[in-house]
């Protein structure tokens, strides 16, 4: 188990809840940040009551525009930012709760890859040491950790003899991101959070890294939480997709269904804003007007109503809810038009 850490079917060894137990259950997670100079008691509602379930072996994509709380959510899941309230259940065990799983134990099983591949590596450490650092801190001897690092570098497509002794500044963007993936995998995680992990890469390199992520997921039996603003990439890699707007979930469903028949007007607008590669099919009218509002003092009721073409009085008065989403095939939207009893004139049509 020690040397070829990642090649072992470790998932079964550490699985506690069984295949039907979701990898991660998130319930009503909330984090507000106080802001100075924006009025008394002003808070940014970065993540405001987010609930979802991540099943074992799937890839859940999270999309949304900048400022919608995607990255804060990722950090909350690892307690890199401590949530104000809400509940996290990892493989049947409550996180940081009495008789639950500790945050340290959680972080050994859940790793994260960040967007800025250079900033997330130590510039004064050769990459083989960066990759070996995690296993060493968790009790492996230096030679053991070195060997594990070399194995994992091979897996991400970097020759250890050639690249191992190099420093981060000697690598290209794609190679650095491969190192970050290797470092995350060196801990033998069961779940990986990829926060805009391919967004800073050029298209040809992005394709290489996406292929690598898919291959690693198959061979290492991983579960991914894939955060991106690029809808095409999310469509490509995800089994299910969650759409966020101003700190809340507006739509959640299987990728195929959500992309072909979006139910929330915001998701429809996002999809319509995708650029085609066909110069004869140009977009003439923008699907949405204006920028997203500030997450400080968001609109009452439905947060999307200020930009929504179908907004009515009920949208300002009541906040729509997602509805039941217990199993992995359900496709739900937090919109009054999706709820037949909401009182919206188009209720039940979405």
């Amino acid at each position, binding site marked *: 188990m020690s040397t070829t850490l990642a090649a072992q079917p470790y998932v079964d060894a550490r699985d506690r809840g069984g295949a039907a137990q979701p990898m991660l259950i998130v319930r009503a997670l909330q984090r507000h940040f106080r802001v100075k100079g924006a009025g008394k008691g002003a808070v940014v509602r970065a993540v405001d009551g987010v609930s979802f379930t991540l099943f074992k072996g799937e890839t859940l994509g999270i999309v949304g525009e*900048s400022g919608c709380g995607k990255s804060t959510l990722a950090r909350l899941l690892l307690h890199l930012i401590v949530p104000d309230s809400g509940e996290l259940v990892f493989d049947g065990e409550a996180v940081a709760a009495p008789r639950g799983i500790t945050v340290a134990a959680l972080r050994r099983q859940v790793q994260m890859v960040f967007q800025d591949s250079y900033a997330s590596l130590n510039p004064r450490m050769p990459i083989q040491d960066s990759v070996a650092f995690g296993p060493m801190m968790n009790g492996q001897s230096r030679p053991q950790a070195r060997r594990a690092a070399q194995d994992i570098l091979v897996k991400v497509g970097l020759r250890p003899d050639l690249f191992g002794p190099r420093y981060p500044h000697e690598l290209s*963007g794609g*190679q650095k991101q491969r190192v970050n993936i290797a470092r995350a995998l060196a801990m033998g995680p069961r779940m990986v959070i990829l926060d805009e992990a391919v967004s800073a890469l050029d298209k040809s390199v992005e394709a290489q890294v996406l292929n690598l992520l898919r291959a690693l997921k198959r061979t290492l039996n991983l579960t991914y939480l894939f955060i991106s603003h690029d809808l095409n990439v999310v*469509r*490509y890699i995800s089994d299910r997709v969650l759409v966020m707007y101003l700190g809340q979930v507006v739509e959640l469903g299987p*990728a195929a269904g959500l992309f072909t028949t979006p139910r929330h007007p915001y998701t429809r607008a996002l999809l319509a804003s995708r650029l085609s590669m066909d110069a004869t099919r140009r*977009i003439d009218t923008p699907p949405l007007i*204006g*920028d997203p509002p500030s997450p400080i003092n968001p609109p009452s009721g439905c947060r999307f109503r200020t930009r929504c073409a179908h907004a009515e009085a009920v949208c300002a008065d009541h906040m729509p809810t997602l509805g039941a989403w217990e199993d992995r095939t359900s496709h739900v939207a937090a919109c009054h038009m999706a709820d037949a009893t909401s009182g919206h004139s188009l209720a039940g049509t979405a």
Partner: protein
Amino acid sequence: MDAAASGPPLLEIDNLCVDFVTREATVHAVSGATFSLRAGEVLCLLGESGSGKSVTLRALMRLLPPRRARISGTVRLDGADVLALEGRKLQDFRGGAVSMIFQEPMTALDPVYTIGQHLTEMLRRHKGLGRAAARARAIELLDLVKIPSPERRVDAYPHELSGGLRQRAMIAIALSCGPRLLLADEPTTALDATVQIQVLILLRRLQQDFGMGTIFVTHDLGVAAEIADRVAVMYAGCIIEEGPVADVLRAPAHPYTAGLMASTVHDQPDQDIAAIPGSPPDLRRLPPGCSFAPRCALAMPACRQAFPEPVFPAPNRMALCLRVADVLQASLQPTA
């Protein structure tokens, strides 16, 4: 596009080379770019990071540091030699005849000046307007780029605006003196998808109304498809393919363009993407022959010996490749 087909070229660039010289090495950022632009035409320079597209724009605008950047070749705007401009002539040229929109409006705008001050400085310097007239014109310009309540926003500082509004303000500044040539360096890359399409549609409309020649730098094929008349694809400092946007995106003639299109994710779940192997060459040590040959699946021994000569596979189209015929055939097959 009809207007673009007639008249003499607005901008002619011939064999533009930019080298950055340091003590350790010389970086060949642009090696022999040649293209022209007619008045009212939109040309997209398409390429990945480090391909030389932004450096080409900065060379045109004479923004590169004169000591460290060695520029050769000719750049002519309306027949005048841009690389020879000095002093006041250069000041008139920048902002008057040519203006530029940068990628990141927060760093391109001065945080201690209001949007109105940015605009009136331009109008007073280039158009000689008085204080009140310049302010009135500034408000008109903000209205033109669809900034809501321009009378209020004219006194706003850059940090008080959202990303989309800031980029609109920058467009207003660039257009304030009615430039003949607009240079746009990834103007929508930092914006969210729903805001990006709004700004693209706005730019397309303003470009048609003002009738200015535009060079638009982007790495996004979708943006090029949305705004360009012609595209020029850059790789390792060279323009390796050029042609009308619809033709190039339908049937690329260079293997790099074809590879770039194949590696762009587009509704193909559950199969691997056809990525281009390897990474772009080191611009300090360019390989002999074609720079793309080390990554190219079609490369032959001849590709590695000499730099390929331009090939013209169709009217208005150019590619630097020995195997254009094979690439064109392969790229036409799926649709045929």
